[in-house]
């Protein structure tokens, strides 16, 4: 296993990765975001840089409130960063790119309750120039991939939480993105459902050959899923470390998690995150005091 502490990322990191020769797909470079101005300014992200290669599954993990969602929104072009750039195959991302799909944490809010499941999945395809046949096939295919073939005619709110998030994933898949950004997608489902959905993501990644960036606060989840884990500090957020995960594939909920290597990695990530918390609390207090004096 190689743990690569890499301060100047954005460059392909050599190591035991699935496709070391793959080209750089998404490049986050010197990203910073400050909300508000003057004395009330809050720096959410100080300086984040890392790269995602084609076909890779990268997990972004960090302490709660470290600006993971801000980072993801900046990466998707929904939010304009204060400084730094995000580029997709060299093109700067200033609006949501056509080859990118997002899965939000809160499925109950991102699915449209007035559309049936099939309509929800079809919605992003409506603006594309697709034949009705192709559109239907994509919707049916995506629903089959997530195991919801028989639920096209239901409303999302008639399904369980886990099934609703499957619908959101199917919607992203039908869109045929090259890169899939997932924002803590399984944070509000029960543990068993969560394990199933994790394995679903691993399957779909191969089936659809999609690159995945997966934001989570769950350390086990990040180590279980990822080829690489980007560990963030707490606010103001920087990249603490990028960790290669050399666990054998296919991953298995029981066997993988029993490996000594898995335990070592998760403890390592855990300590990294814990270490980043303590000094930051002092920083924040100092910052507040400064703001008051100023």
């Amino acid at each position: 296993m190689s743990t690569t502490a890499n301060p100047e990322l954005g460059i392909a990191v050599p190591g035991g990765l699935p496709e070391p020769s793959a080209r750089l797909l998404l490049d986050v470079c010197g990203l910073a975001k400050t909300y508000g101005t003057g004395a009330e300014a809050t720096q959410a992200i100080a300086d984040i840089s890392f790269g995602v290669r084609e076909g890779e599954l990268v997990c972004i993990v960090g302490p709660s409130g470290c600006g993971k969602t801000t980072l993801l929104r900046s990466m998707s072009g929904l939010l304009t960063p204060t400084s730094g750039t995000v580029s997709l195959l060299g093109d700067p991302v200033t609006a949501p790119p056509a080859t990118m799909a997002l899965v939000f944490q809160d499925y109950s809010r991102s699915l449209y309750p007035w559309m049936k499941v099939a309509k929800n999945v079809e919605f992003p395809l409506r603006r594309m120039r697709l034949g009705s046949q192709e559109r239907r096939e994509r919707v049916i295919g995506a629903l089959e991939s997530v195991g919801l073939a028989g639920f096209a005619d239901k409303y999302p709110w008639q399904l369980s939480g886990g099934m609703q998030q499957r619908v959101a994933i199917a919607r992203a898949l039908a869109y045929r993105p090259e890169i899939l950004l997932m924002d803590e997608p399984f944070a509000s489902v029960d543990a068993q459902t969560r394990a199933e959905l994790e394995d679903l993501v691993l399957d779909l990644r191969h089936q659809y050959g999609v690159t995945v960036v997966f934001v989570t606060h769950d350390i086990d989840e990040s180590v279980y899923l990822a080829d690489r884990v980007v560990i963030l500090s707490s606010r103001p957020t920087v990249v603490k470390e990028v960790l290669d995960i050399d666990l054998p594939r296919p991953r298995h909920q029981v066997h993988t998690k029993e490996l000594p290597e898995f335990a070592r990695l998760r403890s390592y990530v855990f300590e990294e995150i814990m270490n980043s918390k303590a000094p930051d609390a002092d920083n924040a207090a100092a910052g507040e005091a400064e703001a008051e004096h100023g």
Partner: protein
Amino acid sequence: MVGIVSTAARASAQGDFSIPPWLLPLLQRLAGVAGILALLELITRTGIVNPRYFPPMSTVFARLAEEAVSARLWSDVLLTLQGWAAGLGIATLVGVLLGMVAGLWDPVFHGLRPIVEFLRPVPSVALIPLAILMFGAGMESKIFMAAFAATWPILIQSMYGVRDLDPVQMETARSYRIPGPMRFRRVLLPSALPYIATGMRVSSATALALAVSTELIIGAPGLGQTINIARASGAPDLMYALIVVAGLLGWLLNIVFVRVEGSLLRWHPTYREVAQ
């Protein structure tokens, strides 16, 4: 429903002829109406109330039955409904458009607020002289009055409906590069629809009230005018018969709105139990 049906089935299987549970509320409502009618009949027949001003209900309903086959009643109903429909239509157009623009765009919201806060509490009937001056004593005045009063609930509901949009729903659409007009039609409008529908239901009742009041006060042709003529010509039975018609009209319109709302908003949490 399954539980209720099986209970009823069991009850009848045992030869127990109690009232089926679904019929009970209906019977209670009918009993309430019948009770009031009987009471009214009693106080008029016994002379507690002078039948010259308040004829017995049986006389009123006999007159109503007579009128129901006359062309005059239906032409009055039609005239009143025309005022109601045109007024509500204008109010919906103005209210939804202005309300949504104000809901979307803060400067319009803040600029519109004092105007709305001032105009809304003005008792609409106080504007009748203005309507007469501007439009005379005909259909136009009726439409103006109905539209004026009916605009406010729709405007305010549309405004808050738009402002209540979940930002995640809009961001989802943006992330999938859904163009603006489609985001408006497929996301913003359906999301604001429950609010707009409530506004329209409230406004429908207001528009009917204003249409009839305008007819009564300025003598624009319609139910209100005929009610007034019946009063002046000493035909209280006709007057009350027409009041009953006006009441039934309001009641029926409300039922229509509730039905349409229910089927249009089957997805909305308020209606979900009904849908399933």
